[in-house]
């Protein structure tokens, strides 16, 4: 085999190696920024513990700090932290009395489920509404959809959450107020999944509504732009029916900017999850982070931030791959 042939054969492997190296670089960068950012905030875990206990002697505080390693200079703490990150050791949460990785792994599925559900909802419903609005551009349907989208766009997430709880849980009593499952019922198998599904509806919708508004507007705008393109005129001149043109030619091409937007919004969806998890007492990473912040549980907080950033980076790669799949002009490299 020629040298060129060999290189071409190895190329996919080399490409992935490059990509992994990039990921590692990004993750370490994020870890560094997180570490110093959190140390800018005044106070530490020892102070909070002392505050909770009502009072503490300086000796006790010093002992606590020594135990947590907080008495050492910042650069040593950072060096240790970085070493731990590289060995995938996220440390120990002294407040919760459990390893950080264990805590995160416990909570991660709930957050992942919430995010996936709300993204799917926002994407599917948003694209559908935007599609309708673009098909009926300038008509009443378009106006109504645009007004609704603007409303969702402008309303704060937590407020929507509270209102949805009041309407669907309190007045109508259709859906549970919060939590992830009806613990006392002790469901198994399908019944359990259905139960979680019922609990999932309100938080997923709440988190998704804001992004739904964005996708609606984006789909409408990019479809209208594509309606003006030459290849749409070609399709019309072939005698293709309007509905088929809208789906096969217009929507198919309009998906590209939507997928780009999806990649950019993942971070903000994760950020929004903190609020929504709090409102709906959803046992996910967001609430864990919220608690860790107030308890100055820096180890836990750093671990959560790191895990979230890895999640965002990984999903972004998935989006890149989807892009290569959706648009034949894009070469994945």
């Amino acid at each position, binding site marked *: 085999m020629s040298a060129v042939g060999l290189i071409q054969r190895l190329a996919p492997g*080399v490409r992935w190696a490059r990509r992994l190296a990039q990921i590692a670089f990004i993750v370490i960068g994020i870890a560094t920024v997180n570490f110093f950012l959190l140390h800018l905030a005044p106070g530490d875990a020892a102070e909070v513990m002392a505050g909770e206990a009502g009072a503490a002697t300086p000796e006790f505080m010093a002992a606590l700090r020594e135990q947590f390693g907080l008495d050492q200079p910042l650069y040593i703490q950072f060096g240790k932290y970085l070493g731990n990150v590289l060995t995938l050791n996220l440390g120990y949460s002294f407040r919760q009395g459990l390893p950080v990785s264990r805590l995160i792994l416990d909570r991660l599925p709930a957050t992942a489920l919430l995010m996936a559900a709300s993204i799917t909802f926002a994407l599917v419903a948003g694209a559908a509404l935007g599609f309708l609005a673009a098909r009926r551009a300038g008509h009443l349907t378009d106006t109504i959809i645009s007004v609704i989208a603007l409303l969702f766009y402008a309303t704060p997430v937590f407020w929507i959450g509270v209102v949805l709880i009041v309407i669907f849980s309190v007045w109508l009593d259709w859906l549970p107020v919060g939590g992830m499952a009806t613990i006392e019922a002790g469901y198994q198998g399908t019944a359990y999944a259905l139960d979680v599904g019922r609990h999932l509806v309100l938080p997923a919708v709440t988190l998704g509504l804001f992004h739904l508004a964005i996708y609606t507007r984006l789909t409408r705008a990019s479809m209208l732009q594509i309606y003006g393109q030459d290849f749409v*005129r070609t399709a019309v*001149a072939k*005698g293709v029916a309007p509905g088929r043109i809208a789906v096969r030619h217009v929507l198919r091409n309009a998906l590209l900017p939507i997928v780009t937007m999806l990649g950019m919004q993942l971070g903000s969806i994760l950020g929004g999850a903190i609020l929504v998890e709090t409102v709906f007492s959803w046992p996910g990473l967001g609430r864990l982070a919220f608690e860790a912040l107030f308890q100055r549980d820096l180890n836990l907080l750093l671990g959560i931030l790191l895990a979230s950033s890895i999640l965002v980076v990984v999903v972004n790669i998935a989006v890149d791959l989807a892009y290569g799949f959706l648009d034949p002009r894009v070469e994945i490299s």
Partner: protein
Amino acid sequence: MSLPILEIDALSLALPTGSDRPFAIESLSLHIGAGETLCVVGESGSGKSLTALATIGLLPKAVRPAGGTIRLAGRDLLGLSERAMRDVRGREIGTIFQEPMTSLNPVMRVRDQIAEAFQAHRVLDAKRRIARTLELIAEVGLPDPAAIAGAYPHELSGGQRQRVMIAMALALEPKLIIADEPTTALDVTTQAQILKLLDALRKKHDTAVLFITHDFGVVSEIADRVAVLQHGILVEQGSAEQVLHHPQDAYTKRLLAAVPSLVPPAPKDLGEAPAAFRVDDLSKTYPGRGFLRRRAVKAADGVSFVIRRGETLGLVGESGSGKSTVGRCVMRLIEPDAGAILIGDASIRELTQRQFQPLRRRVQMVFQDPFASLNPRRRVGHIIAEGPIAQGVPRRKALADARTMLGLVGLQPTVAERYPHEFSGGQRQRIGIARALALQPEVLVADEPVSALDVSVQAQILALLQDLQKRLGLAILFVTHDLRVAAQMCDRIAVMQKGRIVELQPTADLFRAPQHAYTRALLDAVPGRFLRPDFDTCFAAAE
């Protein structure tokens, strides 16, 4: 004569109120018989494209029919419902549009786009559709139909894409094919092939062809009959022979006269003019795309030439030949990899951009697209004065000089206060020239400066450039794909192919006795044999 396939009778198309004229088309009557090609010719704004769009019922919303009929094989199309019209499109009328680059859906395979024509009209079953699609791809002369069928549009060249468009238009064997400037975006050699293909298919299928074009060369290649439109009014109609060789209407005569001849004018005497611009062994390689399997493209490969004061050197070639890259490299808008560039005695190739900056005024550029190359948010006077101000001329003086420059290029000095969108294409190109000349350059690089203009405007801009050259002693590097324009404009011509200059000769010699096979192929592909007789006789007389 048999019953016409297409019969347009007293058609008027109304423009919305507030337009520059009430009707886009005014009582237009045309007819095309089976197996006949009618060319509708006109400049931009003549309404020729709207005629085509009206026929397939794709008029823009603002334009509506205001009287007359369009009958296809006896059936009135204007009275049809949208649903009935949809059945006519594709099945009875096939359409080929101008831009092969954008007229195909970028995310759909060629196969699916052609097969969609059958699907839309519920013809054939899925398996036969694919089989027929492959037959069509072979019929329009594409190699390896199976591979083409599975390709996406971006993997094909412009000419290949236009063949796919033709295959699509032919799919259901329509009675009428509408071709709206189908070869305008293509290279001359590709254009010649596509015209030949269209003509062969027309004969084979006995199709009527409505061919919209602005190019009389193309008309002479393909038309049986010609209709000339001016501002929406039919000024002349007749057989190709009659309209091209014995035009009756003054406008037709003017249009024909404005088509640049392939016979170069008598060479001008440059005397002992010194070299103003010298390029030696210029090279530029673009690294290919893709990780680890890049295929480098040599856009300029050992390019050398000298231009004397007052001389115009033409750089001709097809798209991808590297002519524009050379044009940009010599101005260092793109950094060349190797070679020497000398303006007068000053070598500019090895200067840093900062060191080069004060010398920039000595070499200036006129761009191709007069619509995109002027900042839409700045007044014309400021656009022209910007260069001198950057070179240290006091603002007040630069703005005053800008008005003088506008006078020099044949515009009113008072238009300095207006914005680019208020001008026509030709006027904008004058502004572009004024902008370049405001810096009093010695060398002017003109990159396809008249390609976006109508033929009558083209002639004016070329005359202006020649006049300015005479007055200012400019050395001009004239980049063009149009051999007619090159024949009229250039003293010497360099022919480029794949980054190399394959032939460099005085214009008259190049046209009379082309040395390189590629030059001969280019010359043969220039549409418009009707100009050849006088071309040959002229040289016969000279020899």
